[in-house]
């Protein structure tokens, strides 16, 4: 697709959303058998799956920490997840995304409960449509909870961007490609920001407004994450009672 003339007209975006509207989200908890925790997360056109293993033994051994667990995060894009086939394996972008995503989740994990062990988070991007790192963090946060890892809270993530001089929540692919700024954010429900990246062009006032917009988006996602977990685990408890 070449650059559309207008990305937003009369307050309506190309995909029909309002400026502060998220794309549809679908969450499934516990979708994998072998993993200790897992989550499938759809965020508009993004389809991602996260698995958590651990706490488990650390390999290689020299990576282990004597006073806390190590958290490892592998963000990986499937070769078929994008228009032009992506060469499999980690590239510089995915190494950076893995680093900041890990740092977005680490503050909520009680790492000191599990010295000398590893908590491994694997995020596989099956289909990409702008915002894969935020979808991955949302999925990983639920997968961690599903694995029973002690956490201070969940982490929720979404992006804010600027298209045609208008701030909008949760960019889709065209808005990301042809927009003026993109700012992924992750935060805890208490409002602590654990991931912040920005590229493009924002004035100081626009940045302030964008941050507030991202907060609202994250709060909405948090509610969905919570109810997805409740749905899985409250039905299990009810099931137990009926036996």
């Amino acid at each position, binding site marked *: 697709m070449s650059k559309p003339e207008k990305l937003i007209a009369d307050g309506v975006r190309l995909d029909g959303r309002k400026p502060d509207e998220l794309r549809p989200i679908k969450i499934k908890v516990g979708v994998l058998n072998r993993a200790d925790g897992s989550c499938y997360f759809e965020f508009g056109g993004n389809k991602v799956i996260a698995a958590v293993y651990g706490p488990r033994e650390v390999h290689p051994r020299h990576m282990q920490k004597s006073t806390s667990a190590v958290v490892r995060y592998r963000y990986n894009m499937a070769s078929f997840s994008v228009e032009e086939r992506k060469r499999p394996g980690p590239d510089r972008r995915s190494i*950076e995304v893995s*680093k900041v995503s890990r740092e977005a989740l680490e503050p909520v994990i009680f790492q000191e409960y599990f010295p000398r062990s590893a908590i491994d988070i694997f995020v596989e991007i099956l289909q990409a449509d702008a915002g894969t790192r935020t979808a991955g963090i949302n999925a990983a946060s639920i997968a961690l909870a599903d694995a029973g890892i002690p956490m201070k809270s969940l982490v929720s993530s979404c992006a804010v961007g600027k298209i045609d001089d208008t701030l909008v929540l949760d960019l889709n692919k065209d808005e990301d490609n042809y927009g003026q700024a993109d700012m992924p954010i992750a*935060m805890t429900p208490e*409002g602590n920001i654990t991931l*912040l990246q920005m*590229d493009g*062009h924002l004035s100081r006032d626009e940045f302030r407004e964008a941050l507030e917009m991202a907060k609202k988006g994250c709060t909405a996602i948090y509610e969905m994450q919570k109810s997805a977990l409740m749905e899985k685990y409250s039905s299990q408890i009810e099931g137990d009672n009926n036996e």
Partner: protein
Amino acid sequence: MSNEVISELRKDYIYNLMIKGEREDGRAFNQYREITIDTNVIDKAEGSARVKLGDTHVVVGVKIQPGTPFPDTPDQGVIITNLELIPLASPVFEAGPPREDAIELARVTDRGVRESGALDLSKLCITPGEKVWMVFIDVHVLDDGGNIMDASALGAIAALMTAKLPASRFGLGDDSVVPLRDVPVSVTAVEIGGSIMLDPSMDEESIAGTKLTVTSNQAGELSAMQKSGVHPLTTEQINYIVDIAIEKAKEIREKFLVI
């Protein structure tokens, strides 16, 4: 953050100073260490700069040569930024392919140049779809005294400001200056026990919970940002850092990066 080992005693010392509003080298919280920039230090490079930021020492070389454009941007030049944390610069750096810290530093340096629109990529096109100028920005860290990020961003833009397109060497006409239209400056702040300080020294960087790098352009607007490190930040802290970073960037730009 860095894997530098720092004694508990030293950590306490820096913390206690911080509570009194002081830093180990006597700087104010929003004060940079001394900056020295020398340009054209490598004759073989099309542009180069040596930056000293306190004890941190980096050399940035810009090599420019013709190459094939990316298929999706057939009429635009290409920027490729690379940064290596070589073992010469610190006892904790190891040889081998760049790891995540080096990759992050390189990519944030790259985003500062790219997203501010400093380089006019359309003017780096020679023949659309066939030949464009490829601009390689290579950052060599020689001594890690903390805040490699800002030193490398400063070096990158300073090197670009002196760079020439080597057209005559490739039979493409006369040499000309690199088409620059903005001067982005990165300012990095760290959070230590709730306080915010700019331009962390090596010790400050190793005990900091988190770093926030803010790159702003000549108009005082934001071009790129990156939070690095595990400690969360509050909205108030982020807004505060953005404000002082824009101010500080202006100061540095006016003092060292006059076109």
